[in-house]
């Protein structure tokens, strides 16, 4: 597993010392509120309804068991015994007192972790495929490139005060599990005819108030030029992105205002400069990173499901089918751990669960695990023969719920219950849908359906790119929910279409039931929900939903 080199560790320590100084100057009244706000944001610290919220970076979603134990210890010692996984593959805490945050940073730095640029108008955590290095459809492990970009982006002196936040995602497989087309910059790794690594570059994607699908700005960008090209895009954005209106400040607005061709010309002009200034990719560094990210798995015999089933039973089979995926190495599978158990808020994980998962990753998956952008965890390299033992250990901790990629594997933002921006509760909708759809067999029959809930138009729940998106709005002090259908974040990403007028709070799950009834009645055999909406639009659903309400 990759560990930061000694220079990166020294940098992290200097960052902890710097942050400690900033907090102490603030508490002494030597740093004003506005300035401290901007400084603390660049270290993941928000002020929320109850206390500061601290967002800790999990670069490209990869954690060691040691790091997860530290996250568990932080939750126990400084928080209320749990953390919340985010859609940028990070973790956040909601109850850490401000004066303790420097000590938390120190505890993180001791295991090569930090909160650098997890908020603020700067380059955020680089996200990627949670099955990196394990999936069968992977062309190249994206993590070495993510780490190269992370080192470039962290404390980039020119780009720490951008017009708005900036998100980059990288995918190295034929199936895009990193949602690259809805990022400020999305990178897809390809190999050219000579077998060299190149990148297709997408720009200007994003969700929020004005969702946009990214546009391809470069085709087969040579790996040598990766950082100089990113630097050129960021320079154009830093200079020309709007700063007069925070809701129009993301790069998507600039790209759309200029048009792709003009934006591209400006980037190319800037690139002529940045190429002189940013060193080309150092292939020795990349080779070294690749070697460190690669795992050597001991040879294990392939064990078919039938054989495993014999020692377990139906519940195991359903978990195996729903929560595990084929691995590139025979004899292994990747295991998703659902953090969407109905009894617990979506994406939350307790200290005890973290400790258990850390132990299980040591025992069964090379001491390494992943956070996914849909708020679950992955043990990427589990031998098939070990699956029953792993399943047995996960079950009592409510970590073997077999709902991955089903309706109840929802992305749910913190919403009105925790977030000061929200207009409506998200957790109430999570509870309502779970109460209505509690038959796991029915969920499996429906197949892959994504439901995502955002408590306001900032869209942290990514509702625009869900099969069924739920957006909380407030009208005259009452919570209402707008539904969108047919969105998608994988390759060929699409923004969902609005169903119609907003739905009353107590009718959301019932409306989802109506929608699914239409789908069940009218779908072609094996047709996915997404394909159904693409074929039919929202009309058939509209008729049912608003007729029922009338």
């Amino acid at each position, binding site marked *: 597993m990759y560990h930061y080199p000694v220079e990166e560790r020294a*940098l992290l320590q*200097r*960052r902890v*010392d*710097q942050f400690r100084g*900033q907090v102490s100057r603030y508490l002494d009244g030597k740093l004003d509120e506005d*300035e401290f706000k*901007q*400084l603390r944001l660049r270290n993941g610290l928000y002020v929320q309804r109850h206390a500061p919220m601290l967002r800790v970076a999990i670069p490209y979603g990869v954690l060691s068991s040691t790091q997860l134990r530290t996250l568990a210890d932080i939750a126990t010692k400084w928080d209320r015994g749990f953390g919340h996984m985010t859609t940028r593959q990070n973790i956040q805490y909601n109850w850490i007192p401000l004066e303790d945050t420097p000590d938390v940073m120190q505890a993180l730095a001791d295991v090569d972790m930090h909160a650098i640029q997890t908020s603020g*108008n700067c380059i955020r955590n680089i996200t990627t495929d949670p099955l990196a290095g394990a999936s069968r459809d992977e062309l190249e492990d994206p993590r070495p490139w993510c780490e190269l970009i992370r080192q470039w982006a962290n*404390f980039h*002196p*020119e*780009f*720490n*005060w*951008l017009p708005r936040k900036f998100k980059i995602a990288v995918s190295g497989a034929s199936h895009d599990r990193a949602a690259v087309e809805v990022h400020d910059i999305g990178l897809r790794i390809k190999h050219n005819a000579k077998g060299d690594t190149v990148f297709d570059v997408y720009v200007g994607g994003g969700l929020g108030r004005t969702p946009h699908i990214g546009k391809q700005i470069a085709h087969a960008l040579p790996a040598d030029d990766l950082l100089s090209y990113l630097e050129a895009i960021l*320079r154009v954005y*830093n*200079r020309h992105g709007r*700063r007069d209106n925070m809701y129009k400040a993301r790069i998507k607005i600039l790209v759309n205002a200029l048009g792709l061709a003009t934006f591209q010309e400006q980037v190319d002009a800037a690139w002529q*400069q940045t190429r*002189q*200034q940013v060193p080309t990719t150092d292939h020795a560094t990349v080779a070294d990173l690749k070697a460190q990210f690669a795992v050597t798995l001991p040879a294990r015999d392939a064990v078919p499901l039938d054989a495993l089933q014999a020692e377990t039973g139906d519940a195991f089979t359903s978990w195996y089918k729903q929560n595990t995926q084929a691995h590139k190495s025979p004899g292994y599978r990747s295991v998703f751990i659902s953090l969407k158990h109905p009894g617990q808020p979506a994406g939350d994980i307790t200290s005890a669960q973290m400790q258990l998962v850390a132990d299980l990753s040591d025992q069964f998956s090379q001491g390494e695990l992943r956070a996914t952008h849909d708020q679950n965890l992955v043990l990427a390299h589990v031998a098939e023969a070990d699956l029953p033992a792993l399943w047995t250990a996960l079950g009592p901790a409510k970590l073997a719920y077999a709902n991955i990629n089903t309706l109840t594997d929802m992305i749910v933002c913190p919403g009105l219950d925790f977030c000061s921006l929200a207009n409506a509760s998200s957790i109430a909708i999570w509870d309502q849908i779970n109460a209505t759809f509690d038959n796991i067999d029915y969920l499996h029959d429906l197949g892959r359906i994504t439901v995502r809930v955002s408590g306001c138009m900032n869209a942290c729940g990514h509702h625009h790119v869900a099969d069924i998106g739920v957006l909380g709005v407030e009208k005259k002090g009452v919570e209402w929910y707008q539904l969108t259908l047919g969105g998608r974040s994988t390759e060929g990403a699409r923004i969902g279409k609005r169903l119609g007028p907003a739905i009353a709070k107590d009718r959301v799950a019932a409306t989802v039931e109506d929608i699914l009834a239409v789908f069940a009645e009218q779908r072609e055999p094996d047709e996915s929900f997404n394909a159904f909406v693409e074929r039919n639009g929202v009309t058939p659903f509209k008729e049912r939903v608003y007729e029922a309400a009338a």
Partner: protein
Amino acid sequence: MKLLRNGEIVDMPWRLQGADEPATAPIAVPQMQLVQSETPPPSNPAWVALVEPEDDPVELPASALERDAILIDFPSFTDGRGYSHARTLRHELGYRGELVAVGDVRRDQLEFMRLVGIDSYQCEADADVDDLNAALTELRPDA
């Protein structure tokens, strides 16, 4: 108005618009004015260019690049355009003179300003000079 320059706090050597520097100090002329006027300002009194966020330093008249200093304005500490202007001046235009950050320049931003090629920084008269100097190398002392 003061300036952190070569590790020391000194008087601001240029007259910024509306500021109270002596009339003999060289004036800082906004890039906009330099570009719009047909002839650059006469060299007596001496002058330097002031690059503002909306400006493109590539359009500075050649005479501005011959002066000993160029000022970069940071009207608000959250406006990061000046960092790109500094990079452009150093790398694209090859400017070797003194680059000076003026405006809303704060202690915790000095290091990033240094790293993009800025040499001197506006500061408060009562600032702690040792603390400002330490701020310049908090994260990347070797860069």
